[in-house]
């Protein structure tokens, strides 16, 4: 479908341009920004404007994504790539949705970054502005790629650009270590993806160009090889998304990056893995056995619980948010598993419901996690402190940041009428509908599995009360540096955009679901029917049937607001509004100070005690006579010790063995070459 332009629109594009061509132009714009950044070292003013230009590009990308979502699929072949495999790009509904997600969240985050990066030193800023647009372009290309080669190139560009962004503060050893871990696991995942595409291509026959997605769609897939491809893809994309047990890099790398980059990584980059999972399992693979779904569901639920339990015991605010991203990815993957189960069982309408829920949650998470990282970044920027035990009371110094972050915190805690609630509500509805399945054991187990989602959601509320309460409320736990400043206007606007996203996605679910319908139609041949019907259809959300369940956030909000207003007026009118200020009471104890509040460790203590088995706790208990006692309790991931440490030890031992060959003497190396040569000669001449 051609896009109709108003007359006078710049004629760079021929009038019958398709959305994918615009998307490619957007990618080129970001690439050009990246290429220009190193040359702008002298022009500081221009360089500082670069994030704003990225934001404009992102806004355009969101519009293009929307067009791609609504228009029929369009494709182009670029004039470069491998000799017999040029880059194929395609924009269908699924790509359109994720491009919309990238653009919309990327706009808010980049706007925020305009303010955030302003204070950076010029050299470092030029480096960041080289990688930042490249990162955006890489993610867009992952979403647009229509052949395995373009996909892998884009995937690597995304991984490398984000690696260099993570290690922006590379003078700090911990950050270098985090960056290395990220790079390592990203590449193990990439190898799995490469193999997955190889297996997918294996069944391809006919005259289609090899390694294009079109060829893979048409391939004859034996069930066994399809399962191998699926497992490889689940591993590869799971490593990027942070599925347990491939999650270990995530709580290290996401907090290490500058806050806008953390926001992009958690909010958008993790979603490219979800995009990949959906693309491979529903689009490229033709068969979907039911057990894939059971596996993904189990993995997703384990990830969700694991992530949220560890989020509750963190004492570093950005690390807490990173663990909470793992939780949300777990919920999304659980929805993905449920979609596969329903799809394999031929329950198209239910598959559409769960698919809608998971896409909705992906969209939500981009907004609220972006917002939370932005809020945490503003605090970090103002105080230079990430440890929650040294923060507190920020709502008094940074009201804008605090109230906007509160919206994000309430949204991610799954509270109505914000957006996090809608997607979790849809997912829980889907769990309740499983009794229609043909396998009896699934019927009984899955509603109980819903309890895991409920537990994760309830714990998320705990985590967010901890995060917001410790950082923004109460008294400052350490002396506040004198020049504590509120976030500037670009930051506030960025956060406002993201917060508005959280509110609007929460208040207008019927409209959002209508927007998601092309994707569910593409992947499951079904759409979610909103059964509210008639005039109420625009405010009432009733998936499946209105007898079954319904939810109307607008009425909800309206009633709360009206009651709020009435009670306020009534209290003021009938009684009075007199108030006076005094010292806090605290049961009459006169010597209280800020150190008597719960620290981050203290707030997480019940969780640590209940879920003791999951974690290895390291404690430093202060001496009772210490006048300035510091308590430190660190909860470590047991999986690291059980799973990764043995592998790391083995690698170290093997390299020690190999190291014996290395003496640093030239004679030995000559002998090695000589022996190899002899060996090869014997081998060749035989």
């Amino acid at each position, binding site marked *: 479908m051609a896009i109709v332009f108003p007359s006078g629109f710049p004629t760079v594009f021929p009038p019958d341009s398709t959305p994918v061509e615009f998307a490619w132009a957007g990618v080129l714009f970001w690439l050009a920004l990246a290429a220009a950044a190193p040359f702008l070292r002298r022009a500081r003013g221009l360089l500082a404007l670069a994030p704003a230009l990225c934001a404009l590009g992102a806004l355009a990308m969101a519009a293009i994504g929307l067009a791609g979502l609504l228009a029929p699929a369009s494709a182009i072949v670029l004039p470069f790539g491998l000799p017999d495999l040029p880059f194929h790009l395609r924009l269908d509904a699924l790509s359109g949705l994720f491009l919309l997600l990238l653009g919309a969240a990327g706009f808010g985050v980049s706007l925020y970054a305009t303010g955030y990066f302003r204070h950076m030193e010029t050299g470092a800023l030029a480096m960041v502005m080289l990688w930042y647009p490249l990162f955006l372009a890489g993610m867009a290309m992952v979403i647009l790629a229509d052949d395995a080669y373009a996909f892998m190139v884009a995937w690597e560009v995304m991984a490398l650009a984000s690696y260099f962004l993570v290690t922006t503060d590379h003078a700090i050893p911990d950050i270098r270590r985090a960056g290395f871990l990220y790079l390592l696991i990203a590449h193990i995942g990439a190898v799995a993806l490469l193999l997955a595409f190889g297996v997918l291509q294996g069944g391809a026959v006919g005259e289609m160009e090899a390694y294009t997605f079109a060829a893979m769609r048409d391939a004859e897939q034996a069930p066994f090889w399809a399962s191998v491809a699926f497992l490889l893809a689940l591993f590869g994309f799971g490593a990027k998304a942070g599925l347990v047990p491939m999650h270990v890099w995530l709580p290290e790398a996401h907090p290490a990056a500058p806050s806008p980059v953390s926001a992009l990584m958690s909010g958008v980059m993790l979603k490219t893995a979800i995009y990949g999972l959906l693309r491979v399992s529903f689009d490229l693979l033709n068969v979907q056995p039911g057990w894939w779904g059971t596996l993904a569901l189990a993995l997703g639920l384990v990830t969700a619980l694991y992530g949220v339990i560890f989020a509750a015991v963190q004492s570093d605010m950005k690390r807490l948010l990173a663990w909470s991203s793992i939780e949300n990815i777990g919920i999304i993957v659980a929805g993905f598993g449920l979609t596969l189960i329903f799809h394999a069982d031929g329950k198209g309408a239910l598959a559409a419901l769960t698919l809608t829920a998971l896409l909705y949650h992906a969209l939500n998470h981009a907004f609220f996690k972006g917002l939370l990282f932005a809020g945490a970044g503003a605090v970090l920027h103002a105080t230079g402190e990430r440890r929650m035990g040294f923060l507190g009371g920020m709502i008094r110094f940074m009201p804008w940041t605090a109230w906007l972050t509160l919206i994000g915190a*309430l949204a991610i805690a799954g509270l109505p009428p914000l957006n996090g609630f809608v997607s979790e509500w849809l997912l829980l509805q889907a769990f309740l509908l499983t009794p229609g399945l043909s396998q009896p054991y699934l019927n009984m187990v899955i509603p109980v599995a819903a309890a895991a989602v*409920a537990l994760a959601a309830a714990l998320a509320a*705990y985590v967010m009360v901890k995060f917001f309460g410790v950082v923004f409320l*109460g008294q400052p736990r350490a002396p506040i540096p004198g020049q504590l400043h509120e976030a500037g206007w670009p930051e506030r606007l960025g956060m406002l955009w993201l917060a508005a996203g959280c509110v609007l996605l929460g208040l207008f679910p019927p409209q959002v679901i209508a927007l998601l319908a092309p994707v569910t139609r593409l992947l499951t041949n079904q759409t979610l029917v909103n059964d509210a019907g008639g005039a109420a259809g625009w405010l009432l959300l009733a998936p499946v049937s209105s007898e*079954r369940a319904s939810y*109307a956030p607008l009425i909800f909000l309206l009633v709360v607001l009206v009651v709020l207003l009435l009670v306020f007026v009534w209290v003021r009118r009938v009684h009075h509004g007199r108030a006076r200020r*005094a010292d*806090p009471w605290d049961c009459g104890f006169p010597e*209280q100070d800020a150190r008597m509040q*719960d620290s981050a460790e203290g707030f997480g203590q019940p969780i640590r005690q209940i879920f003791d088995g999951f974690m290895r706790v390291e404690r430093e208990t202060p001496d009772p006579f210490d006048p300035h006692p510091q308590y430190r309790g660190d909860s470590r991931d047991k999986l690291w010790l059980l799973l990764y440490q043995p592998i790391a030890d083995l690698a170290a031992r093997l390299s020690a063995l190999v190291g014996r060959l290395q003496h640093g003497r030239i004679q030995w190396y000559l002998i090695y070459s000589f022996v190899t040569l002899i060996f090869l000669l014997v081998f060749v001449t035989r």
Partner: protein
Amino acid sequence: MTTGILLQITQTLLAILLAPLLMGWVNQCRAWLQGRAAPPITQPYRVLRKLFHKDAVIAHDASPLFRFAPYMIFACMALAAGIVPTLANDLPFSPAADVIALVGIFALARVFLALAAMDIGTSFGSLGARREMLVSFLAEPALLMVFFTASLISRSTELPVIVEALAHKEFVIYPSLAFAAVAFWMVSTAENARIPIDNPTTHLELTMIHEAMILEYSARHLALIEWAVALKLFTYSALGIALFVPWGIAPAGDLAALPLALLALVAKMAVGGAGLSLLEAVSAKVRLFRAPEFLGTAFLLAVLGMLTHFLLEV
């Protein structure tokens, strides 16, 4: 439609006005059981009146969140009271939120209360907030499981449909509901800060959960919170009635059945309140870290109820 909205507003107002009465009744029963002279049943109204007349004292460092929270909590509870069918079924608000959204409303109020408790930065405030969130994250999944069991029977998460399925169709005994009812009772004692999880009359700060969170509140703010607490108890009682003993709730549009419905409601609430105070009189508050066991039991009972449904009732 107009009648429906009028009925809806009447029902919500009635819940708001009657809620302190239920609280007074429970207190009265407990005093009798403990062999004390009971306060009059209208005592909670007097307390509210006294609090509304006082001047509010607010800590120097309190943020606007602290002053906003009581209104928010009250509004959430009023909405919840409007959604649960107490007198008549299928009122205009009820499609706005099903049982899962109802859990969300309670969670919203609780999060605001916990945040307000942490706002001033006193030791007891954050301690109370932490404990409250601990109890709630254990109670919420159990509560959802109870709702799921009920909704599996009626194949709906809409409260009016659940009530309709139990009250106005032919009478069937559901064993799964028995499990769910016990679990619901356990969860609602925890959620309403009653014995054995919390003690509403405690004077010992170290054992407080709910009371520790509202220590800094005074006058009109405290009154609103106390009223909201009463309203929460009322709503939970109404919820229990709607899920497990819904007989008497007027069917949709049947105005003639309303007086009987009011009578049935008062009778059921009186019995429920007496039962609550009896259980409180004979049991003791458990240690905080026994709460996971208590609520874990509730969760398992609800899950058992669900499995019973699959084994016996499908």
